[in-house]
């Protein structure tokens, strides 16, 4: 039993959807159990940080890390698991590019706290405001301090592979597990370090069955305002801002197939450094207007540009402070 390679999965700043997605692979999970010994997996296995700390460096073969690095605890465990793991995979959108938790990077930490604890929608009669260090009669209590911004995993530690998606699609997870098992059995090679795995190399449009033409956008509309949406025609051409053209393939165009615009959860296409900037220039390029006022009016059809263009990618965009984004992967 102890001969089986060790497996870990951790959640940092995330919603838990990635774990659900792993369980969604169905009976494939039995293959995981057959080939790996889960040593640290908070959602499934009862083990403590000190158990991990006690392990030999590099003794975990594969760690799937989901979630962004939001606080000191996340950061500590990221370094810990990096040390202990041979292969560290940034798993899911939060770990690879920050995802929705990364949108909080628009605000300073204090503002996040005051919104969470002191606005009308919060029932907080005692006015509790969490502090990293609190003195109580029994002694000193500490909770992990928030970092100023959420970082992606690669902004904190060296990452071996990236697996996008919010969450990664079960069939892609299954394919990655099959690949790792094949590698263990000596039947396959690992992809080069830094590669994106469990996704395609093109964009969502490549997998989308809708017909596409030359685009002339005269208005951007919310999807509920286009009734009925033509089921066979490109959604963007119908004026609904669909992020498919800029989003990495791999999901099999799930949303556009069922009549919803792509919101970009698989992140930027191969080689693209700033997802939002790409998408903005792309949309701007097909706006069919000449006069500045006309253009303004069309762009007003996108009321939440950050949400439209950077919902998943803000923490990993060129806009972020600190290390230039082109020096990715902790270098």
């Amino acid at each position, binding site marked *: 039993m102890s001969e089986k390679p060790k497996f870990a999965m951790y959640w940092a700043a995330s919603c838990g959807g990635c774990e659900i997605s792993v369980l969604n692979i169905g009976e494939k999970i039995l293959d995981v159990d057959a080939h790996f010994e889960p040593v640290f997996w908070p959602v499934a296995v009862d083990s403590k940080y000190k158990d991990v700390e006690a392990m030999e460096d590099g003794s975990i073969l594969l760690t799937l890390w989901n979630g962004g690095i939001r606080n000191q605890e996340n950061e500590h465990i990221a370094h810990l698991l990096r040390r202990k793991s041979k292969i560290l995979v940034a798993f899911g959108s939060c770990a690879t590019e920050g995802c929705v938790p990364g949108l909080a990077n628009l605000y300073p930490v204090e503002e996040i706290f005051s919104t969470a604890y002191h606005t009308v929608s919060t029932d907080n009669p005692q006015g509790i405001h969490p502090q990293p260090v609190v003195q109580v009669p029994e002694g000193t209590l500490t909770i992990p301090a928030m970092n100023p911004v959420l970082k992606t995993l690669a902004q904190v530690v060296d990452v071996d592979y990236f697996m996008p998606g919010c969450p990664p699609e079960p069939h892609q997870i299954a394919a990655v597990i099959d690949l790792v098992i094949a590698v263990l059995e000596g039947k396959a090679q690992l992809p080069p370090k830094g590669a994106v795995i469990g996704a395609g190399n093109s*964009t969502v449009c490549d997998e989308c069955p809708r017909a596409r033409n030359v685009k002339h956008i005269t208005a951007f509309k919310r999807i509920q305002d286009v009734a009925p949406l033509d089921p066979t025609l490109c959604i963007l051409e119908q004026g609904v801002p669909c992020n498919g053209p800029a989003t990495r393939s791999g999901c099999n165009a799930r949303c556009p197939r069922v009549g919803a615009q792509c919101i970009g959860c698989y992140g930027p296409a191969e080689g*693209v450094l700033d997802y939002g900037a790409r998408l903005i*220039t792309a949309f701007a390029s*097909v706006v069919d207007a000449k006069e500045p006022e006309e253009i303004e009016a069309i762009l007003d059809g996108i009321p939440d540009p950050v949400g439209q263009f950077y919902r998943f990618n803000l923490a990993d965009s060129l806009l972020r402070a600190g290390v230039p984004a082109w020096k990715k992967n902790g270098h």
Partner: protein
Amino acid sequence: MSEKKPKIGVYVCHCGSNIAGMVDVEAVRDWAQAALGQDGVVVSRDYKFMCSSLGQELIEKDIQELGLERVVVAACSPHLHEKTFRTASERAGLNPYLTELVSIREQVSWVHTDKQVATEKSKALVSGAVHRVAYNTELQPLKVPINPNTLVVGGGIAGIQAALEIANAGFHVYLVEREPSIGGHMAQFDKTFPTLDCSACILTPRMVEAGTHPNITLLTWSEVISVSGYVGNFNVTIKKKARYVNEELCTGCGICVEKCPQKVIDDVYEAGLGYRKVIYTPFAQAVPKYPVLDRPNCTFFKNGKCKACEKFCPTNAIDFTQEDQYLNVEVGNIILATGYDLFDARRVTNYGYGRLPNVFTSLEFERMSNAAGPTGGEITLRDGKTKPETVGIIHCVGSRDKNFNNYCSSICCMQSLKFAHLVKERTGATVYEFYIDMRTPMKAYDEFYQRVLEEGTLFVRGKVAEVTNATHGPHEKGKLIIQVEDTLVGKQRRIPVDMVILSVGMEPRHDAKQVGQMFGISCSSDGWYIERHPKLDPVTTMTEGILIAGCASGPKDIPASVAQGAAAAARVLDKILQKEVELEPIRATVDESKCSGCRICNNLCPFNAISFLDDVGVTRINPALCQGCGTCVAACPAGAISGTGFSNEQIFAQIEGLLMGV
């Protein structure tokens, strides 16, 4: 970025004091050597004039002796000397595209006033280029064959000149003119300044030569409607509008014109001063000689009756069933000599044109003074008989005026002087010229000004405020009053005259922008076509194979237009004789494995280089058509299009280098 750095040489130019006056060149040199050594800089030098042969030799020597693999020259704009230094590198055996030029003149010394800041900025720019150049790759220019045929658009004097030069050199020309005859504005003039040559006498031999030249296919009453392709290989569609006259049968005898019972005002050639028939040639010496039937005004087309022209035509050349024809021609180069429109004098409402009958435009006056014109050369008031006793000529109408056009139309001073001379000669009237500044710089121009001064024309320096028929007192009765501040006297004056001539300026053709888009060239904010370089390359454009001549690029007199026509022809002949053309290898390419056929880029290319392959669902770029502008590279949401010479690595390395000291 940890791999082995290529050996880089940095060369900082003083440009005399152009750069060295504002940038501490030695400091930039030393800093590059010291601070950028870890980035691959192995040698850093400065020189007084890097572009001199001695400066270039310095670079060549280092490439050979030190084994430089990249070169960065900090000097002037790449527009000026990029080619110089790339060629120098090439001579020394280094691929030219491994040399980068940094503009520390146009972008630094000429725009800064603080030497320290300018020096720091120069260092940052040099650092950016050093970081970038490491990622430059060897590129080879593309070679494409040149089709020896040429298209000339516009049959004015510039276009005629260009067509004749090329045709005489033995190559074929398609000369396209949208009016029924070639000749352009020059055909409307009576005399040309300053020699007072008869305009027709010097123009018509050229027109005839163009019309009969075996190497010229003359297509009048025709317009270009689409252009595709690229330098050396353009495909042009020309619409040959129906003349309703069979050119093979027509002898140009003119009987149809004579017998046509319907007259209309000729507001093109005669500037509205005279009439023409509905079937007409615009003037007697028109080339070609075949008339054109003006369909909207033709009685037969309106009522189904008449056909007088057909009845009397001795060769049965009238053909009411004729339809527009579309011709496809293939050419290697295109010269646009599309000319100008006259400023519409009605827009200066305070000068009363269109409201006060005896206010004339310059073109009306040209027609009036022309012996073949509607008045037979008689200068009269609008009633057609009264000779004026006093004439006021107003300069700069629509030009040098922030309400209309800021630019000087360049010919109006001289044309106004010519008018003054003609009025004096033909009527003996008193003539006033109202000018802002006199501009008579070309050969024999100022001498003509002196002559007109000596003839007794009165010059009032000041911009006319108003021309009015609201008179004060009996001495002004029946006159037009010119209200003007005489800035030399420092007084307001009211000058009563019988006739006012508005010397209207030139404007870009009303459709210059659309035509420019069709040919892939751009207009300045004033609307004139932009030349590749205003001084050193005035007849080519940023689009290879598209040339401009004459007033299409801005106001010009006849000698300048002729010179430009000939210059454009020389550039075309140069291309034709080379048989093939080298295209810059800065091109966009599509990685078809990344292209998902979203078609966002499909409509963006200003050079029509992008096509969509329906069968495989990807976009492709024609490398010969692509000019490397980068529009599609920026637009591609998948990052599937990349621009040679502008890779992400190059751009980010450059940014990083720029920000190194920050």
